[in-house]
């Protein structure tokens, strides 16, 4: 290459660089981010991505998924459902912007919100719905027997983990990470049965239906749904939405909430029909065939509600701090936004009351 060609090549590259869209794109993204901060509404979405996992505390999602409520209530938009196996993975997808709406335990939500994640709780899904089960040959019959034992929770720092630590401290016990002698390990609820068989763990705090499934295998419930915390009056799963998505797509969120209320109503008014839907969804999503009697028992231990007890959430936030998973509380007034839910419930309650076989609040 001669000196001249090299020079002209350099000029060519420089000019092409200055015309290339790279700096433009960069300034645009910077602009759009500051614009978002001033809450200029982004364009409306053509797809809504809903995430949940195959647990009974997410039953409204399972019912809506199985019955096609989302597709009928959210109009003009493609509905994509995604299944997750733990709050961690769902929360990561949410943080990465790969999900718009999600069913999740309050633990990951509160932690995420405290870190500034654009998340809002727009409805409840289920209260209680978790039990502490001991392996039949573990010799554990009371909470105090857990000293020196292995106890499983679905995921580190999730709702059951925080509640287990709270129960332990109530019984004067401590986890190993707090220099106590109770070993808390994370095991996926569906794998607790085999971990019990291998005697790897002695007890597990699991969400339903896994508690009832373990019980059907002969293992013992040593703390039922009411004795875990607050007499069972605490949100085990809530519905979250990406705040930016909600601001830009109020109609989609409204449609989702209608479907959600419809599913919750079916779960409360026609448990038998709901159970069929849940069972079939669990088979499809988790590849698990749950014994109908166990499922029925599990559903009785779970209270399906679209409402959220903010007081319970605040108390949970404090337990989360006690467990060492956070140093500060999020702003709950911003985090919980039930305005749309309540206005929907109100308009529905004004309609003539449908018969018991029909769905609650008049939504079909």
């Amino acid at each position, binding site marked *: 290459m001669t000196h001249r060609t090299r020079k002209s090549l350099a000029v060519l590259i420089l000019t092409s660089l200055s015309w290339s869209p790279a700096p433009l794109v960069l300034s645009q993204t*910077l602009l759009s*981010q500051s614009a978002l901060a001033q809450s200029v509404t982004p364009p409306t979405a053509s797809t809504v991505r809903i995430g949940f996992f195959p647990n009974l505390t997410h039953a409204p999602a399972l019912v809506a998924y199985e019955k096609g409520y989302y597709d009928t209530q959210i109009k003009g938009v493609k509905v994509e459902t995604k299944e997750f196996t733990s*709050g*961690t993975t769902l*929360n*990561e997808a949410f*943080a*990465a912007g790969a999900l718009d709406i999600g069913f999740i335990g309050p633990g*990951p939500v509160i*932690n*995420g919100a*405290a*870190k*500034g*994640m*654009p998340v809002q709780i727009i409805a409840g899904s289920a209260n209680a719905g978790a039990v502490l089960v001991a392996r039949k040959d573990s010799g554990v019959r009371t909470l105090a027997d857990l000293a020196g034992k*292995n106890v499983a929770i679905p*995921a*580190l*720092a*999730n709702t059951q983990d925080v509640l287990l630590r709270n129960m332990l401290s109530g019984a004067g016990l401590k*986890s*190993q*990470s707090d220099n106590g002698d109770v*070993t*808390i*390990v994370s*095991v996926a609820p569906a794998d607790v049965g085999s*971990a019990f068989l*291998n*005697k*790897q*763990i002695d007890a597990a705090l699991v969400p339903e239906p896994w508690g009832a499934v373990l019980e059907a295998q002969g293992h013992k419930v040593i703390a039922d749904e009411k004795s875990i915390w607050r007499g069972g009056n605490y949100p085990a799963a809530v519905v979250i939405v990406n705040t930016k998505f909600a601001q830009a797509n109020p109609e989609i969120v409204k449609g989702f909430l209608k479907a959600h209320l419809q599913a919750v109503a079916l779960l409360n008014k026609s448990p038998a029909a709901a159970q069929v839907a849940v069972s079939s969804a669990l088979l499809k999503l988790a590849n698990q065939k749950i014994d109908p009697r166990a499922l029925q028992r599990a559903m009785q231990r779970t209270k399906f509600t679209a409402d959220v007890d903010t007081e319970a959430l605040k108390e949970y936030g404090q337990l989360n*701090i*006690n*467990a*060492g*998973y*956070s*140093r500060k509380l999020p702003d709950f007034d911003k985090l919980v936004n039930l305005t749309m839910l309540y206005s929907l419930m109100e308009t529905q309650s004004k309609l003539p009351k449908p018969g018991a076989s029909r769905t609650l609040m008049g939504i079909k």
Partner: protein
Amino acid sequence: MTTLTPAKVLRRSRNMTFVWQILGLLLIVGVWWLCTDVFKVKPQYVFPSPKDVWEEFYYGFWGSGPQDGKLLLSVGNSLRRVALGYVIAVGLGGIMGLLMSLWRPLRETFGAYLQGLQSVPSIAFVPFAILFLGLNERAVFFVVILEGFIPVALAVSGAVLNVPPAWRTAGRTLGATHFGLVTRVLLPAAVPNIVTGLRTAWSFSWRALIGAELLTSNLGLGRLLEIGRNTSNMALVMATIIIVGVIGALFDLLIRTLESRIRRDYGLEAGS
């Protein structure tokens, strides 16, 4: 004008390296600060700023709250685990390596398998370790020991085999017994290569530990990574990664210094 002796030149170049390293660090932190606090390339829950990470360091090491001091505790637990695991790995690996070098059938069979196992990432052994030993610290030790054992065994056997045959002959001629030949000729001659193996084994064990600690209940650096991930606390994740890197580098430096001193003593490396 002062005269520049070789020692002074060396010291000066070392001082310059140090200065460059500090400048490089400042540059990295500066760019990091620009990306986070100034331009906000990503939100805080994805890419925390140097200040957020510093806060985690502060509470993790010097905080006085009931749940603070986790970094300190984790570093202690991790070092304890890796120290014990590494010592056992070196002991077992040393014995196995020596046996392999002395006995050909063992070398041809077991040695070949070890060579293959070395390419398997440590995390792949975790499910096996859990099923075999249970969900507890023993499973962590198993993975750490296994990962350290392989490079030590291979290094020792290779190093002993590489001792020039003439030295064996000389040892025999001078009346060394079989045992004496091993302890006074072969092993001393193999020391430089063995030390290189020890260094590899250290970094293998350390990496294996962090992976395996994801399953422990007691605090450790790997566990802390998982806590950070599960609580959306990326600052904690970054702080933990920094500590893992710094500890790994410090120990590597320590063994490397030992290695280069030994190599100098053996006349394998030019010294100052």
